[in-house]
């Protein structure tokens, strides 16, 4: 497969998406088919690229000597690409049904499809400059989605998201510059581009720059000090919160951190330093902080958003382990969490779409009225908890294995944090399902009004996600072998 298709995969959704509001659609059906068509085509192309991976790189554009926008698909990139390519068509299908309630549909789908292209750009970036370029574009393209409903609070949420992302990008920029000046190349090379000889006396500075760069990228991955924007972004329509703030955008932050840690700064220089300790401590704190805030949150989507904050720090915890096992745990959780979280967000979206109820205490007794939705919500809740036999357990297992292999007080604290957050997840996820299914015998069901399960467009993605969760849970080697040789190639 020639390298040019890499660029086609990235540009197709960008151009296709831009076309949606421009082309005068006679009826909504045609627009839906076109949008789904563009997304499916890109996913097909992405999967083709992953299967027979082109070896070389393709430079789309060259600013100056080192600064160029170029794409190359390597093992770790293909994991993220596969994840995004699998989830996007289903999410688009889901959002067709959801968007019937909202207005400015065409502009919404334009940005929705363009974000797909930008995320592919991030996963296939060949060097840090391209990654930074698409990282900034991601902010630009997702802000209108967050502000879609244009209420006062949506605009305020959009603005907070903007400041946080641009602030993060500004600090990540410092990291990029350090690499452009001191690294021998900006391209992603397993084992890092810095060599101790060149650095010499600048090790302390390098560590500081690494921490700044890591924090810059983890603004998008909602690590502790910068996680306030994610729950606020819950005000956006569900397809946005589900796909972007549970899967694409936040995973892009985590993926960028994987790239920076394993492929740019190189774990050899970073292991055992104070930088690693500080970042591990931060991630551990976020894991527990995210869960405890989720417990306190009564708004359904904000509760799931806080749970995303804590689950993302699982991935970052794996990344800061800086060992092959750590990378494996991180990638494994990235994939598993994406599936679990998007399923629970879509269930929440279906409930909101059908009953306009967004608060947890309003959901009592709905289990009987919308059985499939709540059954799948319980399944995804149990998966998030880490019940063995579902995906959550698989990724927790590898993360804990990496932490134990690492040894040291901090990693044991990490495992303890994982356990505490699993317990808290159980409390805030199962709490909802139990109240939905067993509201107590004195509950008047007709008070819920005429409510039933949503249409097939919403249920199909949900069922597929649930099937994937159970499949990976029971046959984890499908996923872990794949990630195993990805990690092997990265070290």
């Amino acid at each position: 497969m020639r390298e040019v298709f890499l660029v086609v995969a990235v540009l197709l959704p960008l151009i296709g998406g831009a076309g949606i509001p421009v082309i005068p659609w006679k009826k909504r059906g045609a627009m839906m088919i076109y949008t789904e068509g563009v997304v499916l085509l890109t996913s097909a192309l992405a999967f083709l690229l992953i299967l027979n991976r082109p070896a070389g790189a393709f430079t789309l554009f060259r600013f100056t000597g080192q600064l160029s926008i170029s794409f190359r698909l390597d093992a770790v990139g293909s994991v993220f690409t596969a994840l995004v390519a699998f989830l996007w068509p289903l999410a688009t299908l889901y959002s067709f049904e959801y968007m019937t309630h909202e207005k400015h549909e065409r502009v919404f789908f334009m940005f929705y499809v363009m974000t797909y292209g930008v995320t592919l750009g991030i996963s296939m970036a060949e060097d840090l400059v391209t990654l930074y370029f698409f990282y900034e574009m991601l902010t630009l393209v997702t802000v209108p989605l967050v502000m879609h409903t244009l209420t006062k609070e949506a605009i305020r949420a959009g603005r907070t998201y903007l400041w946080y992302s641009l602030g993060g990008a500004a600090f990540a920029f410092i990291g990029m510059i350090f690499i452009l000046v001191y690294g021998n190349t900006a391209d992603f090379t397993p084992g890092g581009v810095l060599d101790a000889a060149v650095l010499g006396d600048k090790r302390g500075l390098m560590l500081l720059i690494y921490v700044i760069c890591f924090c810059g990228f983890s603004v998008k991955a909602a690590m502790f000090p910068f996680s306030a924007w994610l729950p606020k972004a819950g005000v956006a329509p569900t397809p946005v919160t589900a796909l972007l703030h549970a899967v694409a955008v936040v995973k892009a932050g985590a993926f960028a951190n994987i790239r920076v840690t394993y492929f740019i700064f190189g774990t050899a220089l970073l292991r055992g330093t104070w930088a690693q300790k500080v970042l591990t401590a931060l991630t551990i704190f976020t894991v527990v902080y995210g869960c405890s805030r989720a417990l306190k949150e009564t708004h359904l989507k904000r509760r799931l958003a806080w749970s995303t904050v804590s689950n993302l720090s699982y991935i970052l915890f794996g990344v800061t382990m800086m060992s092959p096992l750590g990378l494996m745990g991180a990638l494994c959780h990235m994939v598993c969490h994406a599936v679990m979280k998007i399923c629970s967000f879509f269930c929440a979206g279906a409930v909101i779409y059908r009953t306009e109820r967004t608060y947890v205490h309003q959901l009592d007794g709905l289990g009987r009225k919308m059985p499939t939705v709540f059954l799948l919500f319980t399944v995804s809740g149990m998966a998030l908890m880490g019940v063995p036999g579902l995906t959550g357990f698989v990724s927790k297992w590898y993360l804990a294995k990496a932490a134990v292999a690492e040894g040291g007080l901090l990693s044991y604290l990490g495992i303890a944090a994982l356990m505490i957050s699993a317990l808290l997840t159980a409390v805030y996820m199962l709490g909802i399902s139990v109240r939905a299914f067993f509201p107590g015998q004195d509950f008047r069901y007709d008070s819920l009004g005429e409510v039933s399960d949503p249409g097939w467009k919403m249920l199909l993605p949900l069922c597929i996600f649930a099937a994937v969760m159970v499949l990976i849970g029971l046959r984890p080697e499908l996923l872990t072998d794949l990630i195993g040789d990805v990690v092997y190639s990265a070290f």
Partner: protein
Amino acid sequence: MLVLSMTVALLAGILLLTASFAEHLSQGKRSEAEAPDRGDGKLHIFTGGVMILAAVTALAAAFGEGRETILFYLVDRIPVSFRLDDVGRIFLVLTVVIWTAVCFYSFKYMRHEGEEKRFYGFFFLAYAALIALDGASNLITFYFFFEFMTLCSMPLVIGRGGREAVMAALKYLFYSLAGAYLALFGIFILYQSCGSVTFRAGGVLNPALAQQNHRILLVAVFAMLVGFGAKAGMFPLHAWLPTAHPIAPAPASAALSAIIVKCGVLAVIRTVYFIVGPNFLRGTWVQKVWLTLALITVFLGSMLAFLEKGFKKRLAYSTVSQVSYILFGLALFTPQAFAGAILQLLAHALVKCALFMTAGIFILRTGKTQAEDYIGIGKKMGLTLWGYTIASLSLIGIPPTAGFIGKWYLCQGSLDAGLGDLSYLGPAVLLVSAILTAGYLLPVSIRGFLPGREEGDWGPKEREKADLMTLTLWFVTLLSLLIGLFPGRILAFVNGISDAIL
């Protein structure tokens, strides 16, 4: 064979659950008031038949030669596989006996409660999980079914379901999950320093690695003890038992306190004797703390039960203290103590099941839940009260019953465990707790048979006829008497086990 019985139970459970869902949906359309009772007979025959089928296959597996069966591969190529060893056999037989008794007992009781299909659905799911637990051949399979059993038994506690029933069930769920995650923390650390996780008598710990990270391993084992101990109602995480039992329907609380609590014990046995190996823990701080925790729970449980007014809540506190007898026995690492623990386990399961059955019958007949309300009940319900009295004798530890033998071996083991003051403190606490047990169990039967002047004017006028519920009650009580009178065979079987693992 074991897997066959498990699948039968699983299928039955899922079938019943879908049936209850379908019924709800159709019911949802019409108003709640007149819940139709048609087809009750058919339901009971179906559940009875499935129960017997599952019981027969399970017993066949228990006594037949079990070979390893692998269902599928969980994480890191670790198989979810079953192989029945001696300890597993004891627990399997116990589970089957109790579960069948409770199933037949609950026919009459659940009609009055309602939501029967959902109850039986989860009843069978829990049964499947329990059998799987007994047969699990490695720690990960065990943990897999341990979580599955917690999730299935939670709806049992809800039963008919009122607001406080849901709260109690959630409390039960979160306590057991907290315990499970503490245990998972231990499993992760153990997995690294012992080659494989399959159970092997005497432990699989690889000595070099064990020596290297000795301290963290001790912490891990202690975490697992406290975690699994939560399920067994040990001191730090025991609070869910007294809240879950009174609200749960009688058959559920009978099953809960007889068998599900024992899973905690089984888990402790598996980790201590089959993964870590007793001599790794002998004489360490873990053993000392474990002993003290067990003794505290024994004393705490009986004291609270003595002060408790509600009948079922009192029995729940007694479960807390009795189960800690078993844990105390296991913590001593001596053959007699182990034998005493197993016997106490059997006795307690049967007796506590009987006691909760009587509680169920009393509440069903009289509608009263306080212990001293049953004044002069002996005249009307002599049969049940006699069953209750024999069972409580065994629990207190009066000679001819099984309870006495268990406690005797426990004290014997504790005395020659050679742990200094702890081994003397043990028997003393057991004695005090025996007195307290008598203090909170016997007054009910005394006041029931010899009411003295004040004649309680309550309850049904005509005398009680022997129906299915009293029959199952007597079946269980006689069984516990049988063990008490002829313990020889069981003791020989248990000594065989303890030689292998100690």
